[in-house]
C-alpha cells in the first residue's frame, strides 16, 4: 500500500509539469500579450501612447524574453510560492487572489455537502420504491431543478432572501464586512449569504446525482448478495445500507477528482450573477485580458485540484473496495 502511494505521488510530478507547460502555452497562444491588448484599448479610446514607455513596461514585465524563458521564470516562481504579478491589478497574484480562494473553497465544499445530503436520501427512496408515486414526483422535481437556468433561480432566491430575511443583495457577506478582519459577526454574515449560491449551484448537481444514485442502486438491488443478506434474516434497511448502498458508492468516490475543479469553475456564471467574491469571475476576466500570470496561476490551481482529487479518490476507492486494494493481479 505504501509503495502504491509513493508511486502515485511520483506519477503526479510529471503530470503537473506537463500541465504547467500546456497551460502556459495555451495562455500565450492568442496573438499579442497583455500590453498589446492594453495598447489597442487605449488607442481605440484615442489616447496617445509613448512607444518608449511600452518598451520599458515590456522589459519590466519580462515580456521581451522568449516564451521558454518566460515559462521557466514562472515555473521557478511557482515552486517558491511566487505566482507572478498581475498586470491588471498591479499586484502580486497572491494578494489579488487572497480571500477569494478561501471563500471559493467554503462555497464549493458547502455545495458538495448540500448535494450529497439532499440526493442520497432521495436517491435511496427512489430506487427502493421504483415506479411509485414518490419516485415519479421526486424525479419530476429533480428534472425541474436540472432544467431551470441557474441564474434565473439565483435572481429569484436573492429577491426572496432580501424581502423575507433582509439579506443584502449579492456577495458572500454584508458590504460592511468586506476587507475587514474575520470576526464572529462576519462569519454569521457569510453563512446568511452562503445558502443562496449553495442552493442555486446545488440544485442541478442534486438532480443529476439522484438519477445516478437511483440507477446504480437499482442495479445493485438486483444482485444476488442482497438476497443472501435478506436470507440471513437481516432487516431490509440494514441490509440495504450495508450491502447495495456501499457497492453503489464506488462511482461517486471515483468522481471526486472530477468534482473538485468542476464545482470551482462551473460556478463562475452564478458567481458573476450573484457577484460573489470567488475565483470564477476573476479567472474569466483574467483570461479575457490576457493577464497571463493571474490566469496561469488559476489554471494551475485547478489542475492541481484535479490531480490531487484523483489521488484522493483513488486512495478512498482502495480503502472502500478490497477488490481494488488486494485484487491488483487477479488472474482468471
Amino acid at each position: 500500500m505504501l509503495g502504491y502511494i509513493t508511486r502515485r505521488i511520483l506519477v503526479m510530478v510529471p503530470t503537473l509539469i506537463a500541465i504547467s507547460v500546456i497551460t502556459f502555452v495555451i495562455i500565450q497562444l492568442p496573438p499579442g500579450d497583455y500590453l498589446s491588448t492594453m495598447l489597442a484599448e487605449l488607442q481605440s479610446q484615442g489616447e496617445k501612447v509613448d512607444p518608449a514607455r511600452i518598451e520599458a513596461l515590456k522589459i519590466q514585465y519580462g515580456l521581451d524574453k522568449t516564451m521558454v524563458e518566460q515559462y521557466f521564470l514562472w515555473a521557478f516562481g511557482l515552486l517558491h510560492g511566487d505566482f507572478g504579478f498581475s498586470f491588471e491589478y498591479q499586484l502580486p497574484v497572491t494578494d489579488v487572489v487572497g480571500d477569494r480562494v478561501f471563500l471559493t473553497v467554503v462555497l464549493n465544499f458547502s455545495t458538495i455537502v448540500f448535494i450529497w445530503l439532499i440526493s442520497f436520501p432521495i436517491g435511496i427512496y427512489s430506487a427502493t420504491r421504483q415506479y411509485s408515486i414518490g419516485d415519479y414526483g421526486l424525479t419530476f422535481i429533480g428534472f425541474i431543478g436540472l432544467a431551470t437556468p441557474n441564474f434565473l433561480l439565483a435572481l429569484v432566491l436573492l429577491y426572496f432572501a432580501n424581502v423575507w430575511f433582509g439579506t443584502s443583495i449579492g456577495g458572500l457577506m454584508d458590504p460592511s464586512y468586506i476587507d475587514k478582519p474575520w470576526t464572529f459577526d462576519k462569519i454569521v454574515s457569510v453563512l446568511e449569504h452562503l445558502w443562496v449560491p449553495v442552493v442555486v449551484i446545488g440544485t442541478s448537481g442534486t438532480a443529476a446525482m439522484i438519477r445516478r444514485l437511483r440507477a446504480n442502486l437499482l442495479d445493485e438491488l438486483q444482485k444476488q448478495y442482497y438476497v443472501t443478506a435478506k436470507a440471513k434474516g437481516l432487516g431490509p434497511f440494514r441490509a440495504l445500507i450495508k450491502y447495495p448502498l456501499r457497492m453503489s458508492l464506488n462511482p461517486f468516490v471515483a468522481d471526486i477528482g472530477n468534482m473538485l475543479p468542476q464545482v470551482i469553475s462551473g460556478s463562475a456564471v452564478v458567481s458573476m450573477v450573484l457577484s460573489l467574491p470567488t475565483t470564477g469571475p476573476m479567472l474569466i476576466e483574467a483570461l479575457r485580458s490576457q493577464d497571463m500570470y493571474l490566469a496561469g496561476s488559476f489554471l494551475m490551481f485547478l489542475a492541481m485540484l484535479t490531480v490531487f482529487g484523483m489521488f484522493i479518490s483513488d486512495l478512498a476507492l482502495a480503502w472502500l473496495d478490497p477488490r481494488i486494494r488486494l485484487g491488483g493481479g487477479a488472474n482468471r
Partner: protein
Amino acid sequence: MRGDRVSPLLQVRDLKIGFDLPEGHLLAVDGASFQIGHGATVALVGESGSGKTVVSQAIMGLLPKPAHILGGQIFLADPAGPGIRIDIARLPPGGREMRQIRGGQISIIFQEPMTSLSPLHTIGDQIGEALSLHRDVDGAQARELTRDMLRMVGFPDPEKALTTYPFELSGGLRQRAMISMALICRPALLVADEPTTALDVTIQAQILKLIKDLQSELGMAVLMITHDLGVVANMAEEVVVMYRGRVMESGSVEDIFRNPEHPYLKALMTAVPRFNMGTEERLVPLRDIEYETGHLLAPRADAAAMPEALKDKPILEVSGLSKSFADRRSGWLSGKPSSVLVLDDVSFAIRPGECLGLVGESGCGKTTLSKVVMRALSADAGSVTYTDEEGETDVLALNGDDLTEFRQKVQFVFQDPFSSLNPRMTVFDLISEPLLIHNIGDDAWRREMVSELMRLVGLDIRHLRRYPHSFSGGQRQRIGIARALALKPKLLICDEPVSALDVSIQAQVLNLLKDLKQELNLTYMFITHNLAVVDYIADRIAVMCAGRLVELATRDELFANPVHPYTKALLAAVPDPDLDNPLDFNAVMGGRRSVPSEWPAPFTVDDEHHPHLIDIGDEHMVRADERALSLKLAS
C-alpha cells in the same frame, strides 16, 4: 428439539403464486404440494421456468416484488413445541417473525457463489453477521464459532479465512463459505438452489459430499433444487418433479428413476446425455426442432479433391503449443515480471470429419487454446497447421489478407448465447455480418443464404427482423451456430455451446450439431467440462489439466480404460443419473487431482519431471514418463 418425528418439518400445500407483470398475469406456481420430513433430502426437479425457484423463494419469504402468494399454505414445524406449525405463507415477508425463521431455521445457498457473497466484506464478517442476528453471542464468541464452522466445511486455514474476501477464493471455497454461512445457526432446513451448477465436476462432487456429511452431522433436512438428474440420483431420498408450475410426479427416488410414470419425466430422462449410451442412440429432446438444408449450403460436388500427398494429413495439427500470461501484479517499479503458464507443450491433431472433445475444468487453458487456434491470442512457442484441399497453412504465421482468408475456414460458437449476440442488431444483420465482412455474394444472394441458414438451424425465417432479446437461450444459441456456419467453415470450434442451456434445450442443440456435422461434412473441436456431453458427441477425447494435455484417446477407450489419475478423478466425479451407479463419495479427493505436482510417480509434472505424451497403443496417448509407465502397466 426437532419436534415430533411423525409430522413433516415443512409441508407445502396447494401453493399458488402469481406474478403481476406488465404483459399480464402469470401463474408461476399452480397448486404445488409436497412435504419434507425431518432430516430428509428432497429434490425439486424441473427445467427453467418450471417454478421450482419460485417455490423456494416462497419458502424463504423472499419472493420478488411482482410475485404474490395467491393461495395455499407452507407449514413449518415450530421447534418450540411438537404439533405447533407456522404458516410461512401468511407471515409478512419483512416482519420480525419471518426474519427469525430466515437464516435461523431455514437457510439457502445459491447457484453462483461469486455473486451471492458481497465482494466488499470479509468472509468472517458475512458469516458472523448471520450468527449475531439469530444467536445471542458477543464478538469473540462469534469469531470462535465462525472459525469452527469454516473448519467444518473444510477451509484449510479457518483463522486466515475469517479475514479474506470472496474474490480471493476459488469457486469451490466460495461455495463452502456460502454453506458455512447458511449453516452457522444450525437450521432445520437447508434450501440448496442449484448449489453445484456453476462448479467443475470435481468440485461439484466435493460440495455434494460436504452437504451430505453436514446433513447427517447436523440432522437437518435439505431441499435440493436442480435440473441435474445425476445430482438427484446421488443425493435425494425423495423427488418432486415440476413442470410449468405444477407438480407432475413425486415419490421416492427409487420410484421416480425405476418407473417414471409421467410422460414429462420420461422425456426428461431421455433428454439427458448419460454414460454408456449406444453409439447410435440419440437423445430425445422434449421439443424436437425441424430443420432443412438448402442448395447454397450443400457440399459442393465440384469441390477439388484432396491432393494425394495431403490425403492422410489431419485438418488441424497443433504441436508443442505454449503460452504464458504476464502476471499483472508485477508492476513497473517492483521487481521482475512473473508469468503464469497457461498452455504447456500442447500437441494434438484433428482429422477431417471427426469431433475432438476437449475436456477440462475451468482455468485449465482449453479456451485459451481455442483462442490461439483462432489467432485471437498469440502463442509463445509451437505451431498450428491447417490443411485442406488448397494445401497446408501455417496458422500462426498468417498475416493481413491471408489471415482474413483463413478466418472463413475456422469459425467459433460461443458459450454464452446472451452476450455473444449484439443486442442492437437484428437476426438478419447478425447472420449476414460475416458475409459482409468477407464481401461474399450480392444482396440477393446474402438474403437467400441467411434464410437458408435460419432454416438449417430450425428457426422461422419470419423472425429475421427480430432482435436477440425476443429469443430464448436455445434459439439464440442456434442463431450463433447459424452465424458461425455462414462462411461455410470446415472446422467449427464450439466452446461450451450447451453449458448455459437448460437440459431440455441441451439435447436439441447437441442433436442439431451432430446432424449438421453429417450434413455439411464439418469437423468439430468441442470444448466442454461436461463429460457426458463429450461422451455423446465426440469421437476422440482430449483431457486437459493445468495447461497440459494429459490424456488423449478414442471415446470408448477413454471411458473404458482411463490411465491418467486426473482422468480417473474426473470420471469418478461425474454424477450419473443412474441409481445403480452411485458416486463414490469416499473417492472424492480434496481437489488434489488437478495439481500436476501431486500426481503419482509416472505422471508427476514438476521442476524435475517433464513427461511427454506417449502412445500406449490404440491411439491412446497419456502424459507420463515412458519407462516408469511401461513398468507400471506391465505389473
